[in-house]
């Protein structure tokens, strides 16, 4: 984990150091004298050799002090604190809903494998996956918010409950609908895998009814690969909803980093990338440990 984090820091540092524009020129703006650029360069330590700059970068990361955004002068730590709740308000319900809906749907499809309902749902899934996420959001926002007026077109407030009940439902519904198709398709293969096993035949042979076989025997075993997949999705809750956030003007982390990319705001991009990578690694570690409880066959090394 530590070498990986070191690698992430190195990658981000060298990416911005050698391929990014000169920070001093970005900061100084269009009209700046040579002295101004020089003084900014001295302030940021850009006149130092690269290993000193790397040390400065590492110090910033370790001390959680990335300074201020170049463009808005907001503290980077403040950006995290204020944007993360909005992202989570949208992403946690999406994750819970899509998993809870996809599992029964996939089970149904897998049970009727090869019949009309199975083929129909699989084809609908492929078709649904071929249309860009953007189209769902554009049309959904136009139809449900603009034409029908069921939801506000966009917006956000300071109150958590108002956000969750007024502004978040439409983004949540749209994102859930979109991710339902690929997840159903994937979980279907997990269920099919389990249904083919010998223990299912044994259960049928001893006369258990189908409902018990599906819900107790098959579901429990199929949950293991499903949980692995959900663990992979989990880090996405921080910045995964960037499109949703951009469309619905939700002040979340994803939208923030998009805005930062557009205005070449390097500290924000670097900080968000490094910290989210670290957070991702922590989550992966925790899910690995939890995994042992779900599947006793797993041995942690």
């Amino acid at each position, binding site marked *: 984990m530590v070498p990986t984090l070191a690698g*992430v820091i190195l990658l981000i540092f060298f990416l911005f150091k050698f391929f990014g524009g000169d920070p001093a020129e970005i900061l100084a703006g269009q009209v700046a004298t040579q002295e101004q650029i020089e003084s900014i360069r001295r302030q940021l330590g850009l006149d130092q050799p690269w290993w000193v700059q790397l040390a400065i970068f590492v110090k910033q990361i370790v001390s959680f002090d990335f300074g201020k955004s170049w463009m808005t002068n907001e503290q980077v730590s403040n950006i995290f604190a204020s944007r993360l709740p909005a992202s989570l308000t949208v992403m946690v319900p999406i994750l819970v809903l899509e998993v809870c809906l996809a599992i029964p749907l996939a089970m149904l499809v897998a049970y009727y494998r090869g019949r009309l309902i199975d083929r129909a749902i699989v084809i609908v899934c492929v078709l649904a996956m071929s249309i860009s996420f953007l189209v769902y959001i554009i049309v959904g926002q136009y139809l449900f918010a603009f034409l029908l007026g069921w939801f506000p077109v966009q917006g956000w407030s300071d109150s958590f409950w108002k956000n969750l009940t007024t502004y978040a439902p439409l983004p949540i519904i749209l994102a859930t609908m979109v991710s339902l198709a690929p997840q159903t398709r994937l979980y279907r293969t997990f269920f099919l895998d389990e249904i083919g096993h010998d223990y299912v035949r044994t259960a049928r042979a001893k006369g258990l009814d189908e409902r018990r076989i599906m819900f107790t025997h098959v579901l429990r075993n199929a949950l293991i690969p499903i949980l692995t997949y959900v663990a992979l999705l989990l880090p996405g809750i921080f910045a995964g909803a960037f499109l949703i956030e951009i469309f619905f003007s939700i002040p979340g982390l994803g939208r923030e980093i998009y805005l930062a*990319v557009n205005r*070449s705001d390097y500290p924000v991009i670097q900080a968000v990338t490094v910290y989210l990578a670290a957070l991702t690694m922590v989550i992966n570690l925790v899910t690995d440990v939890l995994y042992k409880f779900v599947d006793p066959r797993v041995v942690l090394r």
Partner: protein
Amino acid sequence: MAAIAQPMAAAPAERSQGVWAAAWTRLKADRVGMVCLAVVAAFMALILLSAAGIVAGGWQLEKGVPYANPGFLGQRPNVEAQSIDLAAPKGPPVDISDIDPLAPKYAEWDKRAAEIQTSSPPRAETLPFGGDRWGRDVLAKSIKGAQISIFVGVFAAIMATCIGTVLGATGGYFGGRVGDFLEWVYNVFTAIPNILLIFAFAAVVGRGIDTVIVILGLTGWTGIYRLVRAEYIKHASREYVRAAQAIGASHPSRMFVHILPNISHVVLVQLSLLVVGFIKSEVILSFLGLGVPIEMVSWGTMLAEAQTELVIGKWWQLAAATAFMAVFLTAFSLLTDALRDALDPKLR
């Protein structure tokens, strides 16, 4: 005797089918796969024609009135096109020449303006599938957009596949220190959430078709690396590779001449999966303004324009871009499935 000897003699001459020939036979039996192959081939022909300038070469020409109606909706009122004429002031112009400091220059400017030839070709009221804000043909735009989007998707996928295959082959074949180092690089790239990695690259390399290809290629190689590496670990100790070593084949020769053809079906399926994923990514990047430059058109920039057009009821650009994209991606995804089934008959 001759009757028996004949089939005996014919048997060795009839070689067993090669992997690719067998896969082709299986693919031909798959009706859905063949239809999809035809659709994908048609798209490829279309983008070749478009790249050669035969089709949709004039997509930038403003052929119709702004927001020209589609041909099948000719009677629909088009307020936006009329508002251009309404913008001109009514009534006689007020004479302010005695206080206008620029008045003496007008005659000279008029003369110089007259020297430059301008032409305003007649604008059509309707276009086959409607027009956009500047009266450009949406159908031509969709074809040109298909060319750019598919081009970016295919080349980014080829780039990612090359990186992933070479690194995966090296890591899996040699193992040891080299393998550990490549595993570390892999871990670093997968530790960063994909979209953040793309954004970080986009922040430093700027805009343009080539940079989109580079961004997607450099960030998307990890999955294929993993699979290729696993295959190489499996194959490196097989007998045919050791036989190759015995006859003096070098490391690169064993890696790419002997092993690679045996795992090429894995690579091919991954390549086509990547194409689908990268086309979707390109559309999103272009939509956000981080992709193709503004003088180009892709399905993503069309969708970006369509968002505002939809509010005033001009839905055809959205419909055209979506339909082109959905048809191509559905066909390509189903073709990938068929390809996987054909290449890997053990799977099922």
